[in-house]
């Protein structure tokens, strides 16, 4: 009797396993790309992806199948990413809601400028953008990656980031500005994009 009760307690997610496996296979490649763009590192991307899918499977019974799986998955991923960046960051946090320029430190971002040798070695446009993405505030980076790399609408980004469309609009505007600022800092010769 006890064992049947235990089985009934642990069974639901196991029953959903085939569906979850199918969803995982379907989204894995795209999710890896998203994780890489957020973390800028293959190893960190894999860790982020692993934690995302582990958590997603744990709560898969709560997933509403009428909604896109990727939106739900990316919400989990971005939450994990933003939390881990905040935890890891030893740097002073800058409020993303504070208007630019009021404190004089809004763009006081970590200086991740590559050395001259590194810059020479990584001259591909992709690497330049990834370096600039890495230096961004996590909330801005997430909004820009979702909109510009994953191609989501503001409404979809708002759903993933669990915020309003107005906030998304502001984060994308400020995120792109920040990205251009970083590109200008690291690659001043990149014409047409930098400030």
């Amino acid at each position, binding site marked *: 009797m*006890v064992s049947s009760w235990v089985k009934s307690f*642990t069974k639901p997610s196991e029953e959903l*396993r085939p569906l979850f496996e199918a969803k995982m296979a379907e989204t894995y*490649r795209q999710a890896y*790309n998203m994780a890489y763009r957020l973390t800028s590192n293959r190893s960190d991307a*894999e860790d982020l992806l692993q934690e995302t*899918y*582990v958590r997603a499977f744990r709560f898969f019974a709560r997933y509403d199948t009428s909604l896109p799986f990727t939106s739900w998955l990316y919400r989990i991923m971005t939450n994990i990413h933003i939390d881990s960046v905040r935890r890891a960051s030893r740097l002073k946090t800058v409020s993303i809601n504070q208007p630019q320029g009021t404190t004089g430190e809004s763009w006081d971002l970590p200086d991740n400028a590559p050395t001259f040798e590194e810059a020479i070695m990584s001259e591909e446009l992709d690497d330049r953008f990834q370096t600039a993405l890495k230096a961004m505030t996590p909330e801005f980076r997430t909004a820009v990656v979702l909109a510009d790399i994953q191609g989501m609408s503001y409404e979809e980004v708002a759903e993933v980031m669990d915020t309003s469309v107005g906030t998304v609009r502001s984060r994308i505007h400020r995120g792109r500005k920040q990205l*251009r600022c970083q590109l200008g800092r690291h690659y001043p010769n990149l014409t047409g994009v930098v400030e």
Partner: protein
Amino acid sequence: MNCERVQTLLSALLDNELGAEDARIVRNHCNDCPGCYHELTAVKALKSNLGALRTVEPPAHSFHTVKESVFGARRTKARWVGRAAMVVATACAALLFLWVSRPQPTQGQSPQLAAESDEIGAQDYVYSNGMGGAYQPASLARQGD
């Protein structure tokens, strides 16, 4: 609409996330303002470059590693939950058994038990059977006979 306001709306304009009226105002402003027009083209180039970034492919064994950890973690968790539930259920069953088999209070003792206690020398007492009547120990009853 001034330049500062227009520039905050450029991203939304390029993403087709601006209302028709605002979009018209911003476009007209950019046509007349070289500074804002330059901003518009720069944001457009940035967006275009981001959209053209290659899709980074996962390493060959990555999918299986992650899959293993997802379902392995679940199995470990399920096993742990199962064991914990088993311990709790066993403890509850033991407590229930102890509660059910606890000793009954002396008042309302059954006639059979009273008779047994009579055997061990409680002949001088008359026990109530708890139902309004009284009975004599067997030894006294025998004496009475």
